[in-house]
């Protein structure tokens, strides 16, 4: 067992590409679920719209990257509006079903072969990240220290993503200490009370859905640019469930909750993945019990278990405040 590489990989996962994608998506979900109490199970669709916004504009329509970013952001905002109109007046469980259905609609449409010329079918789109890497100020080489050493491309992606995370966290922090944020939290606690104060609950919820969705699209940008390709099946329901686990792990309704959650989430997954892989490689694991492919599936089981146990025993997460999370009270 090569513990050195196991811990190096785990350390890399603390700030790695997956972590930033899920942290960003989690910040978006935090606005919707953590602060407004909206059960949006379609966050994957917002990320997909962001990712495909860039990919289709650049690679298929041949437009510049910034236009792709604009299309992704506007697309996510519009999707939030379209999704919000029929669903935001519904009870929480209906909202969950409707959003998960909407996310599946988006995924099925993006991967369908009838729309292949626009979205690349199930194979997705690639060859759109050139403009982004052309902006890379880092010259070729390795950057970083200790276990955190990245190629110039990864360094550039991580730099941009962490700046985005910082900005989003700042925005969320400022929003949530504003009167607007207090109304939002009030809606989460008691919608009728807020309504009786003359606030337009529906409009507030819609605004939260749009803001969270746009931040979700940012996660899609990072995901698409980091890998240089998009594929609709990456944005399936497991993506959303992972984000929920990330958010609940770090603590919903905390500004830094999703960021810390994503760091812990991916470090733990990397740790278990690598330990299992090394155990199999070293012959410590009997093959009838687990093979290489099965080791990859353990991750999903762990996430499922974590989601259950967190929700049962510690719904406020590691750093959350139980009083901040009203979903259990009703």
């Amino acid at each position, binding site marked *: 067992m090569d513990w050195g590489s196991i811990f190096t990989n785990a350390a890399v996962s603390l700030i790695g590409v997956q972590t930033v994608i899920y942290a960003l998506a989690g910040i978006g979900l935090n606005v919707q679920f953590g602060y407004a109490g909206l059960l949006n199970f379609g966050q994957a669709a917002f990320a997909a719209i962001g990712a495909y916004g860039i990919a289709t504009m650049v690679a298929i329509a041949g437009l510049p990257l910034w236009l792709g970013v604009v299309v992704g952001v506007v697309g996510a905002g519009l999707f939030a509006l379209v999704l919000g109109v029929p669903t935001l007046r519904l009870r929480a469980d209906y909202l969950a*079903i409707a959003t998960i259905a909407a996310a599946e*609609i988006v995924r099925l449409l993006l991967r369908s072969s009838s729309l292949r010329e626009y979205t690349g079918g*199930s194979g997705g789109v690639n060859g759109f990240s050139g403009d982004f890497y052309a902006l890379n100020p880092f010259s070729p080489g390795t950057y970083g220290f200790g276990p955190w050493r990245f190629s110039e491309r990864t360094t550039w992606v991580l730099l941009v993503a962490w700046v985005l995370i910082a900005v989003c966290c700042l925005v969320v922090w400022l929003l949530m200490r504003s009167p607007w944020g207090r109304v939002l939290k009030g809606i989460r606690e008691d919608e009728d009370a807020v309504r009786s104060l003359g606030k337009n609950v529906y409009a507030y919820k819609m605004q939260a859905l749009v803001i969270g969705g746009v931040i979700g699209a940012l996660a899609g940008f990072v995901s698409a640019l980091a890998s240089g390709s998009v594929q609709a099946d990456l944005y399936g*329901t497991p993506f959303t*469930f992972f984000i929920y686990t990330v958010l609940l792990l770090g603590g919903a309704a905390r500004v830094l909750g999703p960021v810390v959650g994503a760091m812990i989430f991916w470090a733990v997954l*990397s740790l278990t993945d690598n330990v299992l892989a090394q155990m199999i490689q070293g012959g410590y694991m009997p093959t009838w019990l687990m093979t290489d492919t*099965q080791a990859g599936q353990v991750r999903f089981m762990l996430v*499922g*278990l974590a989601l259950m146990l967190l929700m049962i025993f510690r*719904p406020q997460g590691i750093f959350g405040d139980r009083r901040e999370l009203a979903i259990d009270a009703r």
Partner: protein
Amino acid sequence: MRRAAATGAGILLTALTLTLGAPSATAAGPAPAAAVSPTGSTSASPEAGAESPAAQPNPEPTAAAGDVPAGEGELIRARVRTEDREDVAGVRVTVLQDDELVADGTTDASGQVDLVVPEPGAYDVQLDLESLAGDAAGLQPRTNPIATTVDEGNPRTVAFRLGAEAGTQAGADSIGSTQVAQLVANGLRFGLIIAMAAIGLSLIFGTTGLTNFAHSELVTFGALAAYFFNTVTGLHVIVAALLAVVASGAFGWLNDRALWQPLRRRGTGLIAMMIVSIGLSLFLRYLYLYVFGGSSRTYREYQSQAGLELWLVRLRPVDLICMAISVVVLLVVAWALVRTRLGKATRAVSDNPALASASGIDVDRVIRTVWITGGALAGLAGVLLGLQQGLNYQMGFQILLLVFAAVTLGGLGTAFGALVGSLVVGIFIEVSTLFVPTELKNVGALVILILILLVRPQGILGRAQRVG
């Protein structure tokens, strides 16, 4: 009460033996598959896994978990069937790129052959007419060769359909009444299966308030349990199905006993329970994948039946029997809900648990019964679905949203609404393929789900009440 506990213990025992038996299912699982292994296929799958240890440190959150031989080119699966849906074995299929032979193979007993091509790209898949023998000799494929494009990591399936004449594109350009009737029949068949899953989901929601996202895993459980009894212990699929339904009922009971009942006692909120059910669903789905593997399988019996001409439609006998079983089971459930004491008690609890409890109904017992019934019905739905389309680890999850659509359409919490909603959803999905590509047929149903929520959130049969 005590008797119920005793039978419960007996059922639990079945469940235990089942879970204990599960690892051996993996050990013995590949054996029957190997017996009918593709003859002369170019695939080199046994070596494929050996040289790719999981040394990739970068984790990728892909939803699709490996059903392609890792790093060994891309997979084209050719399937040869007659118009009567009979699989044709021993047919040579070649893959060409720019008129150069890339891969070839011969179909196995299930009419399939896996062809491995070196890289993604455009290929022509050609069927060798000379190799058609026996009953299939002289038949013509509708299209030959078939052009296909292979994407990275996505196995492509190419289907040849053999008919008496070449290129009879029956009904492709005009919508005939036969075609509509056939689609309605298919929709009814699918709708009845959804209905069995939907009634359980709806009853559980009605009595406990839980929106159970893990209901789909009960469906998969039934199908996989039947597969286990069918192939590993070698029972006929009918016996296996009966055992699987019993096991599913036990699994439903276990779900409630081990998880939901304690949570209800703790006073966990409904939304929290819903998220727990999502976690459970994810956990169970990948547990199935872990034990069962990512490939699609079929039961041993009733796989290559000829369709019967019935007036306007053509259905296999097994489909007819499945439909008959569904109808009978649904009628029995409906009758039980309306006529029996327990059924009335169930509806009373759905209506108002506190009032029901106050009027002497044992709410816990009702909930237990609902979970057992719901589990058994879902398991039966899984078996029937498996008979029609084959099994895989996420077959339940693939229909979950359709089940939700059916339940919402009919009115969440009403059993009869779920029934009506399911039939509407099933038929709608199939008939919609007249207008939308088949791969998008589920999209229509999901759009309807959202539209229904917009217009009539209480559903067709639901009582108007405030849901937001």
